[in-house]
Structures are given as structure tokens and as C-alpha cells.
């Protein structure tokens, strides 16, 4: 259970990225975080694992206040939070297995990790998640030898091997084609259900979000302006989040897509 209370982030440039946000995500729930570019979606999820230092408020994961942890304790806490990135953020010159095992770095000492002498239990975990994401045939390939969808699967495996309580997902499909985007979103949602993971998914593609997540939170200028089920996203709600636009196409598109899974949807409207 993740509980965010009055979280505020103001950058040293004076930009208010996150404005007094309160949000709680119970275990097993996948929240889609939508909003225009610059609304503070990335800052918000990075405040949770403190890749960005919050300026105020508190963030509690299973009762532990993350915003007050010392450096060492923060490292321990980060092990419980898996993160999945937009451009995959893999280390290109490492193999798939090394990239996945890097998810265990928080549990292993420096020399063991440097010499790639991970405990057998960690290697077993890595094989389990690699099988789950369907990459068993590629474990010794270099990460830059894979396709975009495969690379994102490595990213997912790296987050899962941490055995996290929470997934922070930053634009997982932004660099993928429409079909792969769906496969990746489906995989994330299924895994969260299997493992009872809470997840916050930043996503630009409203139609895609509506298809897969149970709850949508809309952010505008750093503040929450919408919080509800996917079908609560009326044209009025979208206007509230993104500003005035003709939303009929976006919404109807999402419903059509649900029925005709095989067709390639036109992403341009949804990601506008």
C-alpha cells in the first residue's frame, strides 16, 4: 500500500512540478497517471523512489516514510520499488542476464556483483522472471541486440527480479509500436495481478490506459484534477486535464479498439 500525502516538488529553478498531491494506491491496483507533457507525472513517480528529492509532504510504502530515509536506508527501501522506464534504460553493452541481475544489486555486495558472482537464489529468480516475460532464448545476448519490445521486457524483468511491492512505470510504451505497446501494457497489468503489486503507470496514450488500468488519475500543472475509473473519462474530464479539444475520437477509438484487438489502431489521435 502506497500512501502519498501532500507531496510537493519545487525545482531549484522555481518550477512547481508537483503541487500538494495526495494519493493512495492499495496493493494489486494499477493506476494510470495521465496528463499533458510537463504536468509533473515523471517528477511525481521519481519523488516516490527519490530519484527526485521531494520538497514537502510524505510518502509511505507499507507504513515506512520514504521521504525521511537516510542514504543507506533509502537504498534498502528502493529494493522494494521496481521502476520501468520510457527508453528502457538498459545498459546496452551488458547482456540480458546481467541487466536483469542488476535488479538484485541492492541485495548483493559490491565485489560479488562486480565479479558477477550472484547467489544461486538470485540467478533462479532471474530465470523465473525471464521465463515469465518470454526471453529465455536471449539471456546471453547483448541488450542492444534486441528489438524495442524485447528490450522493454528486459526492463520489466529487471524491475520484477527485485521482488518489489510497488512498480513505478514511466511511459512504458512511448517508444513502441501500437501492437507491442498493448502487449507490454498487458504484461505489466497481468504481472501486477499475479503478484499483487501496486503500480503507478505514467502514460500518454489515453486510449491504451483506458484499456488496461483499473483507475485513472489525471494531473494538470502538478495537481490532481481527475481520479476515477477509466470510463469516467468524459470529454469534460479530458478537457479538465488537457485543455479544450474535440475528444469524441479519442474515446470512441478506445472502445472500438477493445472490440477489434487485431487491427492496428491509429495512435495519433490518442497520443495527441
Amino acid at each position, binding site marked *: 500500500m502506497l500512501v502519498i500525502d501532500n507531496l510537493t516538488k519545487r525545482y531549484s529553478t522555481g518550477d512547481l512540478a508537483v503541487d500538494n498531491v495526495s494519493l493512495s494506491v492499495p496493493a494489486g491496483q494499477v493506476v494510470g497517471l495521465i496528463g499533458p507533457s510537463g504536468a509533473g507525472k515523471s517528477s511525481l513517480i521519481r519523488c516516490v523512489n527519490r530519484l527526485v528529492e521531494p520538497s514537502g509532504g510524505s510518502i509511505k510504502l507499507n507504513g515506512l516514510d520514504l521521504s525521511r530515509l537516510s542514504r543507506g536506508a533509502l*537504498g534498502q527501501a528502493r529494493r522494494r520499488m521496481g521502476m520501468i522506464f520510457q527508453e528502457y*534504460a*538498459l*545498459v546496452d553493452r551488458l547482456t540480458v542476464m*546481467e541487466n536483469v541481475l*542488476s535488479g*538484485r*544489486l541492492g541485495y548483493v555486495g559490491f565485489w560479488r556483483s*562486480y565479479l558477477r558472482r550472484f547467489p544461486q537464489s538470485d540467478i533462479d529468480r532471474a530465470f523465473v522472471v525471464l521465463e515469465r516475460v518470454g526471453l529465455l532464448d536471449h539471456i546471453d545476448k547483448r541488450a542492444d541486440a534486441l528489438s524495442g519490445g524485447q528490450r522493454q521486457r528486459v*526492463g520489466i524483468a529487471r524491475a520484477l527480479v527485485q521482488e518489489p511491492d510497488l512498480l513505478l512505470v514511466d511511459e512504458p510504451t512511448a517508444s513502441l509500436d501500437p501492437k507491442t505497446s498493448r502487449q507490454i501494457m498487458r504484461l505489466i497489468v497481468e504481472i501486477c495481478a499475479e503478484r499483487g503489486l501496486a503500480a503507478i503507470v505514467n502514460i500518454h496514450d489515453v486510449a491504451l490506459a483506458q484499456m488496461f488500468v483499473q483507475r485513472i488519475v489525471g494531473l494538470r500543472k502538478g495537481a490532481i484534477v481527475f481520479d476515477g475509473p477509466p470510463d469516467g473519462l468524459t470529454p469534460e474530464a479530458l478537457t479538465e486535464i488537457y485543455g479544450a479539444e474535440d475528444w469524441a475520437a479519442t474515446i470512441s477509438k478506445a472502445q472500438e479498439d477493445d472490440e477489434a484487438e487485431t487491427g492496428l489502431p491509429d495512435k495519433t489521435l490518442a497520443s495527441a
Partner: protein
Amino acid sequence: MSAISRRWTPPPLIANRALRYGVYAGLCLYLLVAFSTIEFNWTRMSEGAARAGNLFAGFLRPDFTSRWDDIEAGLLESLTMTVTSTIVGIILSIPFGIGAARNIAPAPVYAFCRAFIAVARSLQEVIIAIFLVVLFGFGPFAGFLTLAFATIGFLAKLLAEDIEDCDPAPLEAIRATGAGWWQVLAYAILPQVAPRLIGLSLYRVDINFRESAVVGIVGAGGIGATLNTAMDRYEFDSAAAILLIIIGIVLACEYASGFIRAKVQ
């Protein structure tokens, strides 16, 4: 189509006509005055021409045999100096390079490492060698220290710049797994900079070999000292042999490093 053809010429560098010609005239005058101060001593040049003849004659028939013992000793000294100074230089340049990368080093460490690199780079090898020969006496130890010091300046600076150019996304991702600072270094930075570090190190091997010949001339041992002796004794045929060997070894290094760099991508 318009019947009138309009003329266009590029605008002059200096718009003001008087200033423009003034600057040109001033430059010409300066060059004239400057050249007039150079002394051409024709007698000395004609005397030197005879020596130059001997020199080139020597180069046409290099003599590898009569001074081979000296050449061999000098070469071994130079190669030892090259290998040891490169290895020590690389080992020491890595911490300095990491410390001088703004994206991973704390500010005071960054300032210290940058200052050290700036000092190491501002002094040319020959100057360092003269200084170290005074400190440690003639011989290859001074040469070894000179080249190791110069290697640190060179490699640490380029390594630091390469670290600063790293893709920040993997750094963020590795940090987000709960990895410590050293693990971020080993997993996110090192794989990204490794090919360039290897390439630069190999490049430094042949720089250090060439420099070992130069620092020998100021007394820091190696093949340079042998070359200097041969020149002083007017044994141009032996000098030619030494130069040919230096060229051969540098070429061999060049091909070897090219081959290895192509393998490590």
C-alpha cells in the same frame, strides 16, 4: 523571369573600407618587419650542407650491427618504460577520471581532480622529464615517472569527459534498484566507457613509446639516449637504424591497437 540581373557579392569581413585596407596594410608591414629580423647565415648553412649530406648518406645505409648492443639495451629500456608507465598511468588515471566527472563526483573531489589534471596537462613531457631527471638522476626511472604522470593527465581528462557524456537513463535505472555508488559505477558507467577507455589506453601505448625516445634526449634513459649518443658521435648510420626501428615499432603499435579496437565495440 525578371529581365534585370541583380548583382550580389558576399559582404566583406570588415565593413568599413578605410579600416579594412588599414588592417591589410598593417599586417603586410608587420610581416615585412618580422622577416627582416630573421638572420640568414649563409656561410653556416653551406657548412651544414656537408653534414646534411653525411646525415642523408647515413640514412641510405642504416647500420644495425656495429652498435647493436647499445641499441638493444636502449630499446629494452624504452619498451619497459612504455609498458610500466602506461599501466601505472592507466591505473592512476581511472580514479582521477572518475573524480573529475561532474555527473558522479561530489563538488570538492571534482575540483581537486580537475585541478590535478590541469597541472598534469599544462606541463609538456620534456619539461617534466628535465625536472624529474634533476630529482632522481639520469636513467629510465625518471622517464618512467614522466610518462606515467603525462598518461594520467591525458587519460583522466578524456575518461572524465566520456563519463560525463554517458547516457543518464541507465544510471537512473541502476540507482533505482537500490544499488550503491560503486555498483552504479560498475554497472552503469563502466560498461558505457569501457570501449573508449581501452581504445585510449592502446593509443597511449604508442604515444608513450614515442615520448620515451624524446625524454631520453634530456637524460631520462631509453632509446632516446642511444639516439642522442649516436648523433653526438656523428654515427648517422646507427642513428638511421634507431629511427627506422622507432618507426617500425610505432607502426606495429598502430596496427595492433586498430585491430584490438575493432574487436572491442
